[in-house]
C-alpha cells in the first residue's frame, strides 16, 4: 500500500466501539467452556486446537476452564495450535504469509473430539483451510468449531457450534479482537471499527 493511501485511511473519520470488554470475554469463555463439556458429555477425548494468532490463546483459556472442572486433567495436555497458512485459498493473491508452528497435544488427534477455536468467524475460509489441515494431520472422531465472535457474511457453508457473541456487522466494518497474550498486558477487548 502506498503512503498516500495509508495517510488517507488514517485521516478518514473512524468510529470505534467496544462490543466485548475484558470481563465480557471472561464470561463468554466460561460459558463456551461449559457448552463444550456439555456437548461432549464430559472431557473425554477432548482436544482444543487454536488457530493463530489469537485463536491459540483463546483455546488455552478455554482449556484452563475445562481442566478446572475435572481434577487431574492437565490443560496443556488438551490444547494445541493449528496453523492453516499453507492451506489458504488466497496464497496466490495476498502477500506471502509466514507460516506459524503447528503443535498438537502429545496424544495426537486421531479418534479425538477436536474443537477448533478462532477469534472471529467471517467468510468461513479460514475454517475451510483448517479442516483441510486437520485431514493431513489425522482423523478426529468429531470436529467442532468455537468462536469468540460470529460476524456473519459467510462465503462457504460453515457454521460454528459454540459462539461467544453474534455480531451483526457491515462488510465495511472491521472487527478487531485484542487478547493480552498477543496484544500486550490487560488488552482484552473486541472492537468494531468503521473503516468506511
Amino acid at each position, binding site marked *: 500500500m502506498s503512503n498516500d493511501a495509508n495517510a488517507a485511511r488514517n485521516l478518514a473519520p473512524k468510529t470505534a466501539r467496544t462490543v466485548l470488554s475484558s470481563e465480557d470475554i471472561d464470561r463468554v469463555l466460561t460459558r463456551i467452556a461449559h457448552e463444550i463439556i456439555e456437548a461432549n458429555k464430559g472431557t473425554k477425548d477432548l482436544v482444543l486446537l487454536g488457530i493463530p494468532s489469537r485463536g491459540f490463546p483463546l483455546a488455552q483459556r478455554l482449556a484452563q476452564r475445562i481442566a478446572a472442572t475435572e481434577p487431574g486433567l492437565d490443560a496443556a495436555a488438551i490444547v494445541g495450535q493449528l496453523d492453516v497458512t499453507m*492451506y489458504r485459498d488466497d496464497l*496466490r493473491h*495476498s*502477500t*506471502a*504469509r509466514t507460516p506459524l*508452528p*503447528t503443535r498438537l497435544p502429545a496424544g495426537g488427534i486421531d479418534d479425538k473430539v477436536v474443537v477448533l477455536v478462532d477469534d472471529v468467524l467471517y467468510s468461513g475460509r479460514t475454517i475451510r483451510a483448517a479442516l483441510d489441515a486437520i485431514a*493431513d*494431520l489425522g482423523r478426529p472422531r468429531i470436529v467442532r468449531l468455537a468462536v469468540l465472535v460470529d460476524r456473519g457474511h459467510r462465503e462457504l457453508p460453515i457454521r460454528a457450534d459454540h459462539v461467544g457473541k453474534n455480531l451483526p456487522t457491515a462488510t465495511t466494518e472491521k472487527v478487531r479482537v485484542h487478547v493480552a497474550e498477543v496484544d500486550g498486558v490487560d488488552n482484552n477487548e473486541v472492537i468494531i471499527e468503521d473503516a468506511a
Partner: protein
Amino acid sequence: MKHLLSTLDLSRADAIRILDIAEEMAAVGTREVKKLPALRGRTVVNLFFEDSTRTRISFEAAAKRLSADVINFSAKGSSVSKGESLKDTAQTLQAIGADAVVIRHGASGAPARLAATDWIDAPVVNAGDGTHEHPTQALLDAFTLRNHWARVNGTSTLGTDLAGMKVAIVGDILHSRVARSNLWLLRTLGAEVTMVAPPTLLPHGSNVWPCTISYDLDATLAGGIDAVMMLRVQGERMHASFFPNTREYSRLWGFDDARLAALDAQGQSETIIMHPGPMNRGLEISSAAADSPRSTVLEQVSNGVAVRMAVLYLLLSGDQQRPSGL
C-alpha cells in the same frame, strides 16, 4: 523477492524470514502426510545444465511436498546437445507454462541473465552458476548452523541470527560458489568467517572479502571454531596444478583423523563438521570425520528440502505483480 539469484543482495530480515519459514517446512517432513497444498497447480521446472544429485532431487522433493508439478530438464539428452541456446530453451519453458525455473548452469551469471531478460516471466532460482553463487546451499548451511547455535546457547531458533558464531570454510575456495554464497549470507547473519586454503586455491580479490584468510588449518582450529565447512576439491574444474598431489592436500588441508582427534583433545566438543557434498572421502574429509557425530552432512541434506520449500513458497505465493513482495 521476485528471484533468488545470490545471497549478496539478501537482507538480514529476508534471510531470517526464509529460515523461519523453513523451520515450519521442516516440521512437515516429520509428519505422516508430508505434503502441503500451497503450490497446487503450479509448475516448477528444474533446468540443470550441470550434473547434480542432491540439489536436483532436493528441489524436486521440495516442489512436490508443496504439491507443485515438477518438470526435470537436464542438458544431457536434450536439444541443448544439438546446440539450442539458453534463450530458446527459456522461451520453450515459457510456452509450456512454467511458473518457476530452478536453474543450474556452468556459466556464472546464467540465472541472472534469465531473470533480467523477457525470455521468461517466471521467478528464477539460482541452483548454482559457475563459480559465482549457490544461494540455497548457503541458506541450508545457515539453517543447519542456526539449529546448532541455538542448541549450544539454549535459545529458540525462530527469528535469531548467527551473531558471534565462528565458522571456518576450508578448501577449494577458488572454484567454490558455495564458499561465496556462504560468506555473504553468514556475514549478513552476523557470523565471523575464516577462509582456510592454500594460496593457489584462493581467488584473486579475496583479500578484500569481509573474512579472515588463513593458510594454516591447525592454527585456525586451535583458535576455537564453532563449525568447520569442508569444501569439495572440484577436480572437474581444475585445469592446472593447484597443489602438488592429493596426499599433500589431504595432510595440510583435509579434515583427517588426526584433526578429528585434535578437536577432541582440545575439548571442542561442540564443533560441527559440515560438507555440502558430494564428498571426496580421504581427500578433503576422512571417513572417520564424515561419519562422526560431529558431522552434519545428512542433516544438511534434509534441511535442504525444507529451505528450498521455503524459497519456492515465498517466490510462488503472494502478489507477484509487486516486485518487492517479500
